[in-house]
């Protein structure tokens, strides 16, 4: 019999509905998994009582014959970028140590409304700035995965949603929330053999989500498979008047419309994504993905996205520029850390607080952002980057004239070892080469696990769709999932 902890959202939901087990048993199972998973350092705060309370509410509702919510009885991990009422929320930064939100983010509130419980708050790159979870002020998250070379070296779960990826792949939580600014859902999903979905910009409210780069930040689900992602995104998404960029559109029933028959669909293969030095294994996986989509009935076409090479440099102007503005709120006055040296005035207090509270990568990005927005450089850097962003978005619009979806790898490599790239910020930035362009254009995209590399580590394929066409992305993801037969799981060593 399948253990409860091996089940995803759909499995838990139907098990509870059928009376195979109670929601309380599910919550107890995962609470125990959480407390046994400390070596991974994935949780910043554990909230077992929250998971139990939601479970009891589900059991009671079922006993009373009430209709259960989409996420009823499913205890999830919450990336610590979502403000949770009464539960410390730090964005993995020292500057927010001790911050206890007095309100609930819209996304977490939506999930709780749908019946989900919370196992705890998940570690991440500090303010979601990073691709390996190594910029957290509270230590690295260690991936449940290990290379099969017997070396047992600690690997990154990816970032910034590294805690989310680690707990879902380690069967410590059946699903977790993520946020994606330049690939922070998709890359960690690929590194850990799970499925991660970034919806169209505006689908999920940003209200109560700690801001990194507001024109790019989008929440999304990280889960076992495509169906679970569809269920969870339905629960997370929806119009919210409190977010001025929230899309005032109904949330489609993506789960009900899942269909892996891709007859009539055209899949574009962007030639600019064939980057130099791409590992042969990644290229081979991409080819395999093409064959799988053909097998599902899709027609493959070559497309060009000519400004792809400029996406990363544009992103590393725009994201730090927005971050430098967003993070100006951390000043030691209203919340979080205050560092007040003896005899210091207000300005000194700001500078000392921010020096003490922000990690090196956060400081680096604030400094870059401040520079590119400063008088005399604004047009040369920031305005130029926003113009290039327009061109990148237009590249996609042109591609959609000849195809419905794009297929590409999610990341240019499998998970790397902790510490391997931290000395070179630029090398780390290049990790996001395949995910950043669609972020700049606000498009829905997902990563689906599709195979293992020679060292036994997961590799992901990415599907990018037209704005608001999450359904086609889900469907193509399902077609790959059904054909890839990815069942590998990390062996439990922790």
């Amino acid at each position, binding site marked *: 019999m399948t253990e409860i902890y091996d089940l995803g959202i759909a499995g838990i939901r139907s098990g509870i509905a059928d009376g195979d087990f109670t929601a309380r048993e599910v919550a107890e199972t995962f609470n125990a998994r959480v407390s046994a998973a400390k070596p991974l350092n994935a949780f910043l705060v554990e909230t077992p009582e929250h998971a139990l309370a939601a479970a009891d509410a589900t059991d009671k509702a079922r006993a009373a014959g009430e209709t259960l919510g989409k996420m009823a009885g499913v205890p999830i991990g919450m990336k610590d970028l979502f403000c949770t009422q009464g539960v410390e929320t730090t964005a993995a930064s020292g500057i927010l140590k*001790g911050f*206890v939100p*007095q309100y609930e983010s819209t996304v977490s509130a939506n999930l709780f409304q749908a019946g989900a419980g919370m196992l705890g708050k998940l570690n991440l790159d500090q303010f979601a700035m990073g691709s390996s979870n190594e910029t957290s002020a509270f230590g690295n998250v260690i991936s449940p995965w290990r290379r099969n070379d017997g070396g047992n070296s600690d690997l990154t779960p990816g970032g910034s949603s590294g805690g989310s990826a680690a707990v879902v792949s380690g069967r410590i939580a059946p699903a977790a929330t993520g946020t994606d600014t330049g690939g922070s859902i998709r890359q960690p999903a690929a590194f850990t053999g799970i499925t991660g979905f970034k919806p*169209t910009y*505006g689908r999920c409210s940003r209200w109560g989500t700690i801001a990194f780069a507001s*024109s790019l930040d989008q929440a999304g689900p990280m889960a076992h498979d495509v169906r679970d992602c569809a269920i969870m995104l339905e629960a997370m998404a929806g119009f919210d*008047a409190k977010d*001025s*960029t929230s*899309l*005032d559109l109904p949330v489609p029933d993506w789960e009900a419309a899942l269909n892996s028959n891709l007859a009539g669909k055209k899949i574009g293969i962007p030639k600019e994504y064939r980057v130099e030095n791409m590992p042969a294994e990644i290229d081979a996986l991409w080819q395999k993905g093409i064959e799988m989509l053909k097998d599902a009935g899709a027609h493959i076409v070559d497309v060009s996205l000519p*400004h792809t090479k*400029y996406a990363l*440099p544009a992103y*590393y*102007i725009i994201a730090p520029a927005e971050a*430098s503005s967003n993070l100006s709120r951390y*000043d030691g*006055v*209203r919340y*979080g*850390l*205050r560092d*007040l040296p003896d005899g*210091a*005035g*207000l300005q000194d*207090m*700001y500078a*000392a607080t*921010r*020096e003490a509270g*922000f990690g090196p990568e956060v*400081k*680096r990005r*604030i*400094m*870059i952002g*401040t*520079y590119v927005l*400063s008088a005399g450089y604004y047009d*040369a*850097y920031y*305005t*130029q*980057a*926003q*113009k*290039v*962003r*327009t*061109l990148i*978005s237009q590249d996609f619009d042109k591609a959609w004239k000849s195809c419905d979806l794009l297929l590409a790898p999610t990341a240019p490599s499998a998970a790397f070892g902790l510490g391997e790239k931290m000395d070179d*910020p*630029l090398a780390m*930035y290049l990790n996001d080469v395949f995910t950043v362009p669609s972020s*700049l*254009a606000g498009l829905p995209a997902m990563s689906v696990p599709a195979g293992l590399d020679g060292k036994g580590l997961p590799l992901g394929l990415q599907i990018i769709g037209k*704005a*608001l066409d999450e359904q086609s992305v889900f469907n193509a993801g399902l077609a790959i999932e059904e054909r890839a037969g990815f069942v590998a799981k990390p062996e439990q060593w922790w």
Partner: protein
Amino acid sequence: MSIDKETVKKIASLSRIAITDAEADAFVPELNQILGWVEQLGEVDCSKVEPMTAVIPNKLRLRDDVVTDGEIRDKILANAPIADHGFFAVPKVIE
């Protein structure tokens, strides 16, 4: 254009981040490497391109001009490092 230590200190000051001399020295090559790399954007001819303002076309909504919240002073002050008499407290700014 490359940046020097004085520029780094000026950016740090604009960013309200205290840095030591040694940290400023370390930032010089790092920021130069990153800024040197983003300068490739200058190659792109954008003379006929408008800068992006909204990634998904979306009209800004108007709402009725009425109070929608309030009476939550204690909640707002709950996380303040120091709150006094219902206000955020900061070091003295006027002698």
